[in-house]
């Protein structure tokens, strides 16, 4: 175990070959890689839309594309990034790969359902791709009625079906995680010995299971309304368009936590490993994941402050939105405190973790602005909101995803990534991200509405700054794509535990064997006990 693994040793990658061995695999690690390939594809599709949007917004006139096309671009950017990239991103790749290993199991509880959920994502993605190629959809990712049901002349039905199917993928992943974490833990792996990554994914899975079905049924109602015009959300027939918004955000607000909770789990692992210290306030960080999942369901109405929702409901939702900020604050404080008296090293994943803390802090604090009734009236549906949620979803979730991908890359491939390039790209992503989205806060407070194709010329300077930042960001995202692919073949071999981390996943070979462990581990201590990592593991990297 202590020597670098010879490439010939049997592992999950080389125990069988051929397309069939991948498409019919029940191995959670291979399914994770199938997911990784799929979401990478969607990330670049969504990124291409984003690029076109930013280029179009260089000038206040609509000169690159028509309004109709522009509306389709931002809609498909949102749908691709949210439903086909962010929601499956960390849970379905890193979570899928690592949870069984972290709890000391051979696989997830339901390997076939795991494979099925990947196929569902692919089928849903094909629906969405078909809609995009056939002419796109222009409702915004929010599908607000009655625009989506009655007025839009675009591929609403195909897209909604795609999201519906992908939703079941998400539900089944969540179901699998819940059962696995409850029933498959190794002997001695008590709840409070679980890595915080697992806690975060448990909380995520609860949201997926409770929230996603409501989105599914809402989309069904939208489809019925659009196909048969039955009046469910049509004010002309006595329906209530605001009821759609309630149903939609009952899922779609918690969906933000589906994206950010796993990211928080990743960051907990990174901060601990590169400080060689247990996470400060483990119980509070674990508990705050559950608190976020629970409170996250009680705040959806803060998307409806100006929607003609009752003032009193607005009051309740605003109050609860502030309550949900506290568990997030607890996490940030505890991560920072973990550094205290640690032994901190600055490998790439740690740089991403620092970046995450910074960007998530800004994203979280600007959340306080939009949770405030008085300010939200002014900034809702402006670029302020756009900047805020990109700080959470891109600055938070994608930073953590990249950090986690680098961190577990040696475990996944058996090879180290090139450290110098990786550090450079982490820096570029951080700078490019702030360059893109910080100007948008100012734009938003100035009153620039979102989803505007043509805009008043006084906003141009800030838009140009944002586009410049975006081009830097694009470089930052393309680099890992190249050097990670390169390192898969040419990277230096990694030992089982190149970072001297504590998780059970590091106690098996890199890449791990088919059923993860030669012998199932027995757990005798907490998740972050660095004194137990005794063997001097030589990292070739």
């Amino acid at each position, binding site marked *: 175990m202590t020597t670098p693994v010879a490439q010939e040793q049997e592992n999950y990658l080389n125990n069988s070959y051929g397309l069939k061995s991948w498409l019919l695999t029940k191995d959670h690690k291979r399914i994770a890689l199938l997911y990784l390939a799929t979401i990478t594809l969607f990330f670049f599709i969504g990124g291409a839309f984003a690029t076109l949007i930013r280029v179009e917004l260089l000038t206040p006139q609509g000169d690159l594309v028509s309004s109709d096309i522009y509306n389709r671009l931002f809609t498909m950017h949102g749908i691709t990034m949210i439903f086909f990239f962010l929601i499956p991103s960390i849970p379905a790749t890193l979570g899928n790969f690592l949870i069984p290993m972290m709890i000391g199991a051979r696989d997830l509880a339901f390997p076939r359902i795991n494979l099925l959920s990947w196929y569902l994502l692919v089928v849903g993605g094909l629906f969405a791709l078909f809609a995009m190629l056939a002419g796109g959809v222009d409702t915004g990712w929010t599908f607000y009625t009655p625009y989506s049901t009655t007025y839009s002349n675009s591929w609403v039905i195909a897209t909604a079906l795609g999201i519906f199917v992908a939703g079941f993928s998400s539900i089944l992943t969540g179901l699998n995680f819940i059962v696995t974490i*409850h029933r498959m833990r190794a002997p001695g792996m008590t709840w409070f010995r679980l890595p915080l990554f697992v806690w975060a994914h448990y909380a995520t899975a609860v949201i997926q299971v*409770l929230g996603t079905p*409501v989105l599914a049924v809402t989309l069904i109602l939208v489809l019925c309304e659009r196909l048969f015009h039955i009046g469910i959300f049509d004010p002309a027939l006595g329906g*209530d368009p*605001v*009821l759609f918004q*309630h149903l939609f955000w*009952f899922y779609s607000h918690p969906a933000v936590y589906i994206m950010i909770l796993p990211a928080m789990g990743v960051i907990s692992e990174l901060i601990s490993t590169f400080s060689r210290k247990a996470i400060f306030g483990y119980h509070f960080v674990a508990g705050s994941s559950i608190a976020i999942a629970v409170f996250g*369901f*009680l705040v*959806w*109405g803060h998307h*409806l402050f100006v929607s*003609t*929702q*009752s*003032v*009193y*409901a607005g009051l*309740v*939702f605003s109050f609860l939105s502030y309550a949900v900020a506290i568990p997030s604050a607890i996490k940030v404080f505890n991560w920072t405190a973990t550094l205290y008296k640690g032994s901190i090293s600055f490998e790439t994943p740690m740089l991403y973790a620092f970046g995450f803390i910074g960007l998530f802090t800004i994203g979280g604090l600007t959340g306080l602005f939009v949770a405030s009734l008085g300010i939200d009236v002014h900034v809702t549906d402006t670029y302020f909101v756009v900047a805020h949620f990109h700080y959470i979803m891109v600055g938070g979730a994608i930073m953590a995803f990249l950090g986690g991908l680098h961190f577990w890359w040696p475990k996944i491939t058996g090879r180290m990534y090139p450290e110098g390039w990786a550090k450079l790209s982490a820096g570029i992503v951080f700078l490019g991200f702030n360059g893109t989205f910080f100007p948008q806060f100012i734009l938003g407070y100035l009153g620039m509405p979102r989803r505007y194709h043509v805009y008043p010329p006084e906003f141009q300077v800030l838009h140009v700054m944002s586009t410049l930042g975006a081009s830097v960001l694009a470089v930052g995202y393309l680099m890992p794509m190249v050097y990670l692919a390169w390192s898969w073949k040419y990277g230096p071999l990694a030992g089982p535990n190149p970072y001297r981390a504590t998780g059970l996943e590091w106690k098996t070979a890199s890449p791990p064997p088919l059923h993860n462990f030669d012998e199932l581990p027995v757990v005798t201590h907490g998740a972050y006990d660095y004194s137990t990592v005794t063997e001097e593991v030589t990292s070739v990297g």
Partner: protein
Amino acid sequence: MTQHIDSVKTYAVIWITLLVLTVVTTLVAFVDLGPFSVVVALTIAVVKMMLVALFFMHLRHSGKLTQLAMAGTVLWLGIMVAFTFADVATRGWMGVPGR
């Protein structure tokens, strides 16, 4: 989980009770109970649900986890309805249209 096998008699009693409740709720629907019409109909439905869940679905023999999960789900449904009604039911309290 140890296997609990209930007797056919237990199941039959539950089954008969369910049928009787169906007849009762149907007959009560023809009586004018004012606002209690809803209350009675839903109470009987909840009782029927509990009988099916506890006996036919063996929820009473299931672990605490399952029971907790189902209770939590019902609570969640309640939250969804209650918070939506925090809006729907208080529209117009302000006396200003749309507020």
